[in-house]
C-alpha cells in the first residue's frame, strides 16, 4: 500500500523534474540512506516472513524502477540542455568592443628595426646634439672650409661656426673622443638638416650612423655587416653591390645598392631599369679622421655606414612623397 503510493508519487516527480540539481535531491529523497524507501524497508521487521518477502521484492523492484527513472531523467535533461545550447546563437560577425590603437611612426619603426639588427651585432646606441659645431660636423670629418664637398650638403647656420648638423657623422667623432678606447661599436639614430625641400628632399630627415673601430677591421667586415643588414631588413634574397664613391671622411668610400626587390634585379620602374636601388653610403674611416679622434690608424682601423631612414622607409613601404612623413595625417600613420 505504502509502496504503491510511493511509486506513484516518485513517478510523478521524475516526470516533472527540469533541472539536474533537482535530480540529485530526488535521488536522496527516495534512495538515500535516510530516503523514503529505506524507511519502508526499516519497518519491514514488524511484518510476517511471507509478507516481508513479498514487500522486500516489491521494494527492490521499485528501487530498480527509480534508478531507471533517474537515468532516464538524466538523459532527458541532458538532451534538453543540448538542444537549448544548439539554439543559442550570437552574430560573431558583429564588431568587437572598440579598443583604440595608435602606432609608432613608420620612421621610428624602420629605425628601431635597423637598430635592433645592429644591436644583435654588438652596436650600441649613442646620441649627439642636433646643433653642432662646424668642427664636429665638417672640420673633424675632413671637410675643411672651402672644400667642394661642403656643396654636397647645403647647410643651415645658427651662427658662423654653428650649424644644424647635416649628418649624424659628427657623432662618430664624439663617440671616438669620448670613449678613447677600442673596440668601439656604436650606432646613432637622429635628425639631420639640409637646406633643401621638394618631393624627395626634406629640410629635416633622419639618419642612422654606424661606426666600428677595432684592430684589423677591413672592407670585408663592412661588406659583411651591410649584407646582413640588408638581407634582414628587406629579404633573404637581396644582394648587395658596392660602388666606389667619395665621402671626405671615409677612404675608400662606397655607395651601396641592393638588388631591386620589386623586379629582383630584372629591371623595372622602381629601379629605373637598372636592377639596383641605391640605399646608403659607407666606407673605411679615413686615417685623418681617426687621428683627429686620437686613434692611431697604424694600430686600428674602422668602417662607417650612414643611411637615410626616410629613403629606406620609402622603399620598404612604397611611399612616394617624403612629405607624408611629416604631415602626421592619421590616414597615413594609421596604416602602420
Amino acid at each position, binding site marked *: 500500500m505504502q509502496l504503491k503510493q510511493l511509486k506513484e508519487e516518485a513517478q510523478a516527480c521524475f516526470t516533472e523534474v527540469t533541472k539536474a540539481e533537482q535530480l540529485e535531491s530526488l535521488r536522496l529523497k527516495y534512495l538515500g540512506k535516510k530516503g523514503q524507501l529505506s524507511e519502508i524497508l526499516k519497518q519491514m521487521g514488524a511484518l510476517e516472513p511471507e509478507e516481508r518477502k513479498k514487500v522486500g521484492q516489491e521494494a527492490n523492484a521499485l528501487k530498480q524502477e527509480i534508478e531507471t527513472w533517474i537515468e532516464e531523467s538524466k538523459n532527458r535533461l541532458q538532451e534538453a540542455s543540448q538542444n537549448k545550447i544548439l539554439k543559442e546563437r550570437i552574430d560573431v560577425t558583429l564588431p568587437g568592443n572598440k579598443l583604440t590603437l595608435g602606432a609608432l611612426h613608420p620612421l621610428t619603426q624602420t629605425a628601431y628595426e635597423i637598430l635592433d639588427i645592429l644591436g644583435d651585432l654588438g652596436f650600441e646606441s649613442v646620441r649627439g*646634439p642636433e646643433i653642432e659645431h662646424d668642427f664636429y660636423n665638417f672640420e673633424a670629418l675632413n671637410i675643411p672650409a672651402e672644400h*667642394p664637398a661642403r656643396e654636397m650638403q647645403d647647410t643651415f647656420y645658427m651662427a658662423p661656426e654653428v650649424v644644424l648638423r647635416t649628418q649624424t657623422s659628427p657623432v662618430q667623432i664624439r663617440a671616438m673622443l669620448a670613449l678613447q678606447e677600442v673596440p668601439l661599436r656604436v650606432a646613432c639614430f637622429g635628425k639631420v638638416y639640409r637646406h633643401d*625641400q621638394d618631393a624627395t628632399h626634406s629640410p629635416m630627415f633622419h639618419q642612422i650612423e654606424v661606426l666600428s673601430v677595432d684592430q684589423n677591421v677591413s672592407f670585408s667586415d663592412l661588406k659583411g655587416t651591410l649584407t646582413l643588414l640588408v638581407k634582414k631588413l628587406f629579404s633573404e634574397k637581396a644582394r648587395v653591390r658596392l660602388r666606389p664613391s667619395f665621402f671626405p671622411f671615409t677612404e675608400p668610400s662606397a655607395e651601396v645598392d641592393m638588388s631591386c626587390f620589386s623586379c629582383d634585379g630584372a629591371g623595372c620602374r622602381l629601379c629605373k631599369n637598372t636592377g639596383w636601388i641605391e640605399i646608403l653610403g659607407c666606407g673605411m674611416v679615413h686615417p685623418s679622421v681617426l687621428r683627429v679622434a686620437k686613434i692611431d690608424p697604424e694600430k686600428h682601423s674602422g668602417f662607417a655606414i650612414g643611411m637615410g631612414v626616410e629613403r629606406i622607409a620609402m622603399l620598404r613601404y612604397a611611399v612616394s612623397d617624403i612629405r607624408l612623413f611629416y604631415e602626421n595625417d592619421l590616414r597615413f600613420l594609421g596604416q602602420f
Partner: protein
Amino acid sequence: MHISIQTLRSMVDLPNLSPQEIADKLTLGGLEVESIQSFEDDTILELKVTPNRPDALSHMGIARELAAMCHTRVTFLAPSIKELGASIHDLVQLNLLSKEACPRYACRVIEGVKIGPSPEWLSKKLLSIGIKPINNVVDITNWVLLERGQPLHAFDLDTLSKSKGRVAIKVRQAQPEEKLVTLDGKERILTPTDLVIADEEKAVALAGVMGGKNTEVSETTQNILLESAYFEPKGIRKTAKRLGLSTDASYRFERGTDPNGVITAIDRAAALIQEIAGGRIRRDALDIYPNPIEPLEISMRTQKLAQISGLPEPEPAELRTRFLSLGIETSGRGGHDAIKFRVPTFRPDITEEIDLIEEAMRLAGFDQIPTRIHFHKALSDKNLDLSLDKLERHIKTFLSHVGFFEAINYAFGSPREFEAFGSTEPLTLENPLGEEYSAMRQSLLPGLLNNIRHNLRQQIQKPCLYEMGVVFLGKNKAGHKPDMSTLSISDMGADSYAHEKLLCAGMAHQSDFFALKGILEALFASLKLTPEFKPLSQDLKFLHPGKSANLFLEDTCVGFLGMLHPSFGQDAQNCVFELDLDLLKSHCFKTVQVKSLPKFPGIQRDLALLLDESVPAGDILNLVRNFQALTSVLEDVRIFDVYQGKGIEPGKKSVAISIHLRDSEKTLTEEAIQVPIEVLKQELATKLGAVLRTN
C-alpha cells in the same frame, strides 16, 4: 657631365663593349653613369662625378679610367704645332702678381684668324654634350676643356691696351669695388679676394670663372691671346660661390686642374685654331710657373692594402702594371714591403697611402672583396647610458597601444606660432627656408596643434598624437668651442652650443582631463612609478589655470598635464601633456624588490565623507596615508565615488573612500582598528571639515 662614346672610342680601343657595358664598367669603377642617350649616330653618357675626381671631368680622363678598368692603357700624343714669325715675348709681357692664387699662367698669340662658324664635326661634338656652338675659336676652347679638362680662354688681342707697342697682362687681386662686365653681360662688383686678369688699364677677365665682355672674341676679331692657367682651387671657389656663378671653367678649377697639363692644352687649342680658323701661331708660349708643382711620391705597403681591403696581398708586378694604366708610375722601393709610386698631378685626390689603397681596391673591383661578419658581444663594460633609449621605446610603445599616434614634426617653425606656447627668444637660423621655418622649437606642442588641426580638416574624429623629440632652450653658458679633452660618452653634447632637451608631448582632441590623466597614471604604473599631480605651479600661460596639473616624482617636477587655455578658442578642446625624459629617466628601471604575499586576511573599511567642494580629494588620501596610528597596517586607500547633486547641499560634495588594512604578522581584528578608525574620522573632521555620512 656628358661624355660621347664616339669620342671615347677614338681614344681607347673598346671594340667589344656596348654603351651599356661601358656604362657599367664606369659605374662600378666609381664614375656613376646616370643615363645613356642617343644623339644622332653617337651615344651620350651622363656621368655624376664625385668632387674628388677633377681628372674625370674630361673625355681623356674618362678614357684613361675606362682603359684601366679594362686592363689596357691609353697614350695621348702631344699636339704638334707650327710656330711662325716673331716671338710672343716681343708683343706680350706677363706680370704674375699673385703667385699663390695663380701658380701657373701661360698664353699664346695667334694672329690673322678668321672667325666664323665651326665645322660640322665640331658643332656636332659640342651639341651632343649639351654645349651651344658660338664661333670657331670659342668652340675650340670649349672643346679642349671637354677633351682634356683644362679650361682655356681666348681674348681679342686688339681690345687689350698697349703701351710702347706691347700688351702688358697682369694676374692680380681685384681692387675693392672694382667693376667688370662678364661675358654674360652682367656687371660684377669685385673684392680683393677675387683674382682678375687685367691689362694696363682694366680688368679683362674674372680669373678661372668667366671672361670680360670688353675683350670678347667677336666676328671681327683677327688676333687672339689664348690663356691657359692653373688657379688655386680655394680662391676660385670663393669667387664663384660669392657671385653665385658656376661655369664649366670654375667647376674644374675649384676641384683642381692639372698644373702640368697647361701647356699641352694650350698647344692643342692653338693647333686646332690654326687648322680651323687659320692664322699664324707666334713663336713661343709665355709660361710663368715660378714654383713647379711636382708629382707626389707615396709609398704603399701591400700588407696594409690586404689589411684594409680584406683581399689577399697582391703581386707587386701586377699592382705596378695596373697602376700604370691610371698614369701612376712606380718610382722605387718604399722601404720594407712597400712600393713607392709617383702620382701624376692630375690626381690631386691621391695624397697618402690610403688613397693608393683605394685605387688598388677600385681596380680590383669592390665585388671581388670577400665578405666577412663578426658577431660581437655587447660592450657591456662601457659606460654607455642606454636607459634613455629604453625609456623612449617604452613610452612610445605604451602610448601607441593606448590610442596615440606618433608624430614627427620639423624642429624649426614659425616664431609667431611658437609664441603662443610661451616660447621666448628662440634660437633662430641665419639662413632659414622662410620666416615660417626660422626659429628652433622650444616646445613640441605647436607642431602637435598643427597636426591636430590638419587631421580635423580631414574629418578625423578625436585625433590623438604625441611626439618625442629635442627642443632647444637657448644657448649654453659653456660656450661653443669644442673641448675634446673633457668629453665623455654620458655627456656627449655637453659642450654643445644650445641646451637641447628630450621631451615627450601629447595632444588629444576633445579629451577629458581625467581620460588623459588615467593614461599617464597607467604609463607611470607601467614604469613602476606613482607621480603626484599637483595644481599647476609652473607659469604656463597656454594652459587653463584651473584645469592643469604638474607631475611630481618625489620632489622633481617632471612635466605637466592640462587643458589648453580658453583663449585658444576652438583649440582649447585639446588636452595636452609634456614629460621631460631626462628627468624621468633617473627614476626609472629600478629593479623591483618583491614583497612576500599576505598570509593573513585584511579588513576593508569604506567611509563616505561630506565636505566642502573646494577640498582636493588628494588631501583626503594624503591625510589617510600619513595617519600615524594606521601606517603599519595601511595597505591602500582609494577614492571610489565622488558625488554632488540631489541630496547634497550646494557647495558640498560627497567623497567615498575605501581603506584597506592588513597586518603582516597576524589576523587583524575589528577591535584592533576600532579606536584608530575613530581617531581618523575625527582628524578628517577637524583638518578637512569632513562629516561622516551615515546614509
